[in-house]
């Protein structure tokens, strides 16, 4: 008897909770608590009254696909595709890259299945790997002129559309700093590593024991931190690429390369004031957002993509967050201490192998629509909430992190060095950086790993 009862109890408890779940949905609708930190920010209305974009009516009825690897804008892209279809008659099916595979794996398997997406949003290295084999030449497209400085070329041709600019640096929470110090805080006043350390000491004295969050993830350490040694050579793409080639060829001695030493000095500063210093590899990404929003820390090394996490953690669009540079030394005139890195991060590639002429034409029109139509321009900024790399786009991003990058781009306080490194760079050297972060290796060992990695690339 007992056995039967226990079985039934499980079923009925589960069924009950299931029913309650669905009933709550029906009875109370979706109205939720105004303090709900999970609640997505109110949708920003799009002004659709003006639309001067010239649609090619012969493309109406065409159907194309768009593979999206930027999960956080999936819903926004779906809305964009609806808006575009209403006006052009072209159907854009937005396919997500699902959890569990990398965008590249997904695209490779789709090409093998003979069913590749017409358009694919990919990382720059992925596009370069595929460009000459699969992608259509976009060099003659009208939007190219608007994206100057943010284009990626392969052998002199443009194969991809830069979807957004992303910047990274040391995120600060102004309110926290001002409250701790009891005075105004001007981010522009911090111009050297020493003044940054002095600020950290001040915060420490004011009660914020360890004011910095450093992520332990290999992509953060291997790509976002370590790549400064290439990017900060002179802040340009050719300069960074030149350093990479020298390291690869073994002609640059890393142990005497100034930028590497400076980088490690700054990394050591971050390490010293790391909130998770007791267990740096036990740090949790989501908790860092909460710590920064709550004021347990004042700084977090990350990029403007961190906004949704901060918003979830309770940060408000009105709050003042912004970026400090990665201070390399004490030279106030060094650009590295003044500017932050901001470069195109996601690229859209157009398939030329399987897509029909008409589909390619429709896809090109869709890209131009994003850049030139009033609605596309608004939706890129307001719905997708990204920083547009197109000069003609008049809209400003709303969240404080993107707004800060946007302002810095327009005041000349950013640099764009898009270095191309092998795709496993972040994974392999991210592991070496983790070891260094955890104090289980010294500088010599880390430099050895970097040299060994590059030696294998020949």
């Amino acid at each position, binding site marked *: 008897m*007992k*056995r*039967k009862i*226990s*079985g039934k109890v*499980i079923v009925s408890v589960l069924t009950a909770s299931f029913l309650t779940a669905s009933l709550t949905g029906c009875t109370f609708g979706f109205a939720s608590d105004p303090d709900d930190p999970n609640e997505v920010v109110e949708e920003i209305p799009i002004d659709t009254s003006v639309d001067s974009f010239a649609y090619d009516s012969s493309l109406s009825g065409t159907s194309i696909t768009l593979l999206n690897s930027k999960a956080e804008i999936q819903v926004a892209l779906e809305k964009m595709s609806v808006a575009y279809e209403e006006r052009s008659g072209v159907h854009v099916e937005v396919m997500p890259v699902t*959890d*569990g595979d*990398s965008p*590249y*794996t997904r*695209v*490779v398997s789709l*090409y*093998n299945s003979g069913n590749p997406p017409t358009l694919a949003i990919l990382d720059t290295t992925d596009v370069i*790997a*595929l460009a000459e*084999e*699969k992608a259509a030449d976009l060099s003659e497209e009208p939007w190219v002129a608007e994206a100057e400085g943010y284009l990626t070329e392969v052998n002199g041709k443009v194969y991809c559309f830069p979807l957004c600019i992303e910047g990274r640096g040391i995120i600060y929470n102004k309110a926290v700093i001002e409250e701790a110090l009891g005075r105004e805080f001007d981010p522009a006043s911090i111009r050297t590593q020493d003044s940054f350390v002095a600020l950290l000491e001040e915060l420490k004295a004011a009660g914020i024991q360890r004011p910095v969050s450093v992520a*332990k993830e*290999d992509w953060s350490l291997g790509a976002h931190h370590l790549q400064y040694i290439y990017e900060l050579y002179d802040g340009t793409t050719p300069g960074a690429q030149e350093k990479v080639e020298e390291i690869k060829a073994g002609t640059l001695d890393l142990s005497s390369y100034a930028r590497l030493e400076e980088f490690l000095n700054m990394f050591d500063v971050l390490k010293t004031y790391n909130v998770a210093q*007791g*267990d*740096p*590899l*036990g740090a*949790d990404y989501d908790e860092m957002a909460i710590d920064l929003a709550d004021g347990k820390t004042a700084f977090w090394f990350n990029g403007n993509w961190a906004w949704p996490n901060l918003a979830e953690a309770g940060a408000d669009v009105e709050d003042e967050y912004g970026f400090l540079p990665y201070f390399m030394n004490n030279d106030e005139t060094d650009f590295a201490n003044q500017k932050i890195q901001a470069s195109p991060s996601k690229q859209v590639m157009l398939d030329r192998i399987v897509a029909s002429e008409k589909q390619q034409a429709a896809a090109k029109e869709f890209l131009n629509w994003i850049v030139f139509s009033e609605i596309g321009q608004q939706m890129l900024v307001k719905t997708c909430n990204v920083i547009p790399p197109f000069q003609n786009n008049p809209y400003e991003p709303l969240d404080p992190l993107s707004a800060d990058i946007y302002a810095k781009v327009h005041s000349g306080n950013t640099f764009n060095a898009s270095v191309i490194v*092998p*795709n*496993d760079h972040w*994974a*392999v050297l991210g*592991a*070496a950086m*983790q*070891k260094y972060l*955890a104090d*289980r290796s010294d500088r010599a060992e880390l430099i050895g790993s970097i040299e060994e990695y590059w030696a294998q690339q020949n």
Partner: protein
Amino acid sequence: MKSKNSGKDFCMFGLPGMFCFFAVVIIPFVYGVYLTLTDWDGVSSTKNFIGLRNFAGVVRDSQFWSSLILTFEYVIVVVVLVNVMAFAIAYLLTRGIKGQNFFRAGFFTPNLIGGIVLGYIWQFVFSRAFVSVGESTGWSLFGISWLSTPGKAFAALVLVTVWQLSGYMILIYVAGFMGLSEDVMEAASIDGASGWKKMTNIVMPLMMSSITICLFLTLSRAFMVYDVNLSLTAGGPYGTTEMAAMHVYEKAFTSRAFGLGQAEAFVLFIVVACISGLQVYFTKKQEVEA
């Protein structure tokens, strides 16, 4: 069934299952083996035959071999722990104790949680629950997250695998115990000094077919560990817990060395095939022919 009409029997009983199996598993596998002999990168439209050059690359990839050694260590620990636990628990669950159905449902739950959620929940356990226990008790064992030191991260992987796989094996052992006749089950109850002897002399031989299956399954699953590896430690801290299957996948798709990754997968397959072949051969010998 041994009589005439064997052709018709084959078509009716054997063929449909074999067709599915060959079409989905064997043909792609053979094609995959062919790919290891080419320089195909996964996307290009041309494939050039390059012979065994990819396999020479496998020999040179020292990380592959160290990940394989790590996998061996892991497999040994996991296979022993999983089978001892699952056998013991299945035995207890078939003795007619109170609420055994409820218990069985509970031991089944590890099977219900898969993928990234599993890794996430266990990350919580190791980096938070354990740490908070450490903070309140001062035990250094729980002082910092298990996932941030190589040895403990390995232990964490073993623990989660044992939890997950034994849930599965319990099911099979339970089915095995229930297939035994009442007399045997009676004999199996350890109620005297001779209980242990009865267990090893009577029950174990009759359970040998279940044991063969479970050993084989744990062996192959442990060798192929990927999901848990990826979602719990992602190979970390600093690459010290990267097992063979994960290394192969990373090689093919993160390092973009598709042919090399495919060749390493094939080498891994050969290694596992040899080991499980030996295991099945030896345990089969112990089985009682019914």
